[in-house]
């Protein structure tokens, strides 16, 4: 365990550097970026917003980290977010007085269940039918949004049931409630993967599925499991997304989140080639992505060039993680080698 920790610490170093650099930029150039006040009994400020708004991506990133560790990818999570949001909104219903159609916990449970089913569908395609992950999940990423539209009758469903607002808008001990959900999920995932052999098995499957099978690991079940888990994470993320704006928008909920989340995982140090994974790294990656977005809003970057700025930051953070690049910058020119 100690070894795992020290390794992941080394890996997490560069993502943290990148985050720090972004923060420093804001410290100098964005007025009041770090000001935190207390309003309505909770903390209020850009930094708090970043944590709060990063939660949906963080939740997705947790699931995706495990999927990517098995050398897979899940591009359907954005659509599953929309489905989950749609289901929970339809079950709670748009009653103006805020009386839920079905009890809120049931509605949430149902939404998460549907998401897990979606994840299991992906898992089945990948592990049993043997489809390539990107194609298997492409199916649901296309069809899923359609399903979300069908569930919501293509309307934005507005919610007025107060207690449900807690998930995405509420505060607990002064901090956004959603961050506790993230913390709980990460803690649980870390426990399950690192205090049991699951993490090792996932990595083994990602590195060499055949060898894993020969070593007595049920690779298929592991694959199935990580996609189902990714569905679960997307489902929870969908609840938070729905609660944040108290509405479900089949068209736009979770749109493009899959790319942000994949980006977060990769920025966090987990390789798209599978193998070793870093949960905390993924969280830092998600924070980088969200800090960037918030910076663009707060700094007042014109929308026309916002995308260019994002591209540049993604590039720089990726380069920072490249061993070759660091070696180059450090002046070790000409030390070219092939690892065989």
């Amino acid at each position, binding site marked *: 365990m100690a070894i795992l920790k020290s390794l992941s610490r080394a890996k997490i170093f560069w993502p943290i550097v990148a985050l720090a650099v972004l923060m420093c930029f804001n410290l100098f150039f*964005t007025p009041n970026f770090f000001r935190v006040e207390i309003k309505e009994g909770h903390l209020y400020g850009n930094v708090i917003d970043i944590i709060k708004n990063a939660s949906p991506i963080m939740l997705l990133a947790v699931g995706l980290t495990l999927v990517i560790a098995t050398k897979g990818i899940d591009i359907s999570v954005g659509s599953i977010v929309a489905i989950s949001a749609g289901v929970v909104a339809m079950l709670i219903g748009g009653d103006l007085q805020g009386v839920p159609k079905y009890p809120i916990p049931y509605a949430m449970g149902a939404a998460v269940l549907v998401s897990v089913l979606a994840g299991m569908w992906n898992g089945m395609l990948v592990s049993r039918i043997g489809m390539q992950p990107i194609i298997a999940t492409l199916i649901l990423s296309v069809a899923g949004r359609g399903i979300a539209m069908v569930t919501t009758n293509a309307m934005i469903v507005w919610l007025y049931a107060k207690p449900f607002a807690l998930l995405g808008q509420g505060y607990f001990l002064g901090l956004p409630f959603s961050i506790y959900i993230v913390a709980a999920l990460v803690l649980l995932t870390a426990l399950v993967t690192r205090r049991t052999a699951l993490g090792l098995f996932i990595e083994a499957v990602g590195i060499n599925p055949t060898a894993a099978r020969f070593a007595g690991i049920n690779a298929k079940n592991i694959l199935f499991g990580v996609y189902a888990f990714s569905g679960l994470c997307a489902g929870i993320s969908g609840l938070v997304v729905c609660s944040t704006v108290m*509405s479900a928008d089949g068209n736009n909920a979770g749109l493009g989140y899959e790319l942000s989340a994949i980006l977060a995982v990769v920025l966090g140090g987990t390789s798209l080639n599978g193998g070793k994974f870093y949960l905390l790294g993924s969280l830092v990656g998600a924070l980088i992505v969200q800090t960037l977005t918030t910076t663009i809003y707060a700094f007042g970057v014109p*929308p026309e060039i916002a995308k260019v700025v994002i591209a540049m930051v993604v590039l720089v953070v990726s380069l920072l993680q490249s061993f070759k690049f660091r070696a180059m910058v450090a002046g070790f020119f000409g030390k070219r080698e092939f690892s065989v």
Partner: protein
Amino acid sequence: AKPAGKNWVVGFSQIGSESEWRTADTISVQNAFNEDPSFTLIYSDAQQKQENQIKAVRSFIARKVNVILFTALVETGYGPVLQEAKQAGIPVVMIDRDVQEADRGLRLTIMGSDFVKEGEKAAAWLGDYLKKIGKDDGKKAINIVELQGTTGSAPAIDRKTGFANGMKDHPNWKITRSQTGNFTTAEGKAVMEAFLKADKKIDVLYAHNDGMALGAIQAIKEAGLKPGKDIIVIGVDGVKGAFQAIVAGEQNVTVECSPLLGPQAVQAIRDLRDGKKLPGRIWTIESIFDASNAAAALPTRQY
């Protein structure tokens, strides 16, 4: 034209289903045509892609439809395919969004709303309202933040332009921040959160659609301010959620942009089949809703 009373096949190329407004539009057209058994509607969703629209129109021509209903995603670039329709003798009726000047000869008419005008209406309403509550003395700066629609989309560009036109009469109005919220509630909220932290004083929020306005309202509330009072909230579209917000006093106004174009479209095509001449432009009937008339209108809203 064909003899009256005959069954007609109508091809309808819709932009997509990117917003609830658009869906309402689609459903309105579909219902209107389905109610009349002498029409068969062939509907095609372009999923916000111009190329898909061109393909759809080509397929309509191959399918030999009698008339094409067409909502253009962008203004330009449909010339060649409209030319093909003309060669095939199929009339094209634009709905909601028109094509550019040079190609207008290739279509019969346009029915729909005017995004620039919506922006102008919003600015005009704001002028009146500020005068009414006595907040605008013509000198003191009025700080406005703007939530833009999807960068580059026609409603975003036009509603921005329209509002800017309206602002010309008010030198003390200032747009302090303007950022895209991509027409979505979630991004509208996130952007507004950042605005609120960066600027001490925001008087007015102008959102290019109600969805973003509703998201921003939540952000304003979280900042401990009162939407509709501390910050004047202006939206466009007139969706149900906005009416509810106006009734609750959290949004001040919504500029209607009616999607219910179906009945008008059916009527126009019937006229066409009967050999009548259509006017070059058919306007939709639209109004503006604020605290004075929203509550009364709310029960009748369909979307």
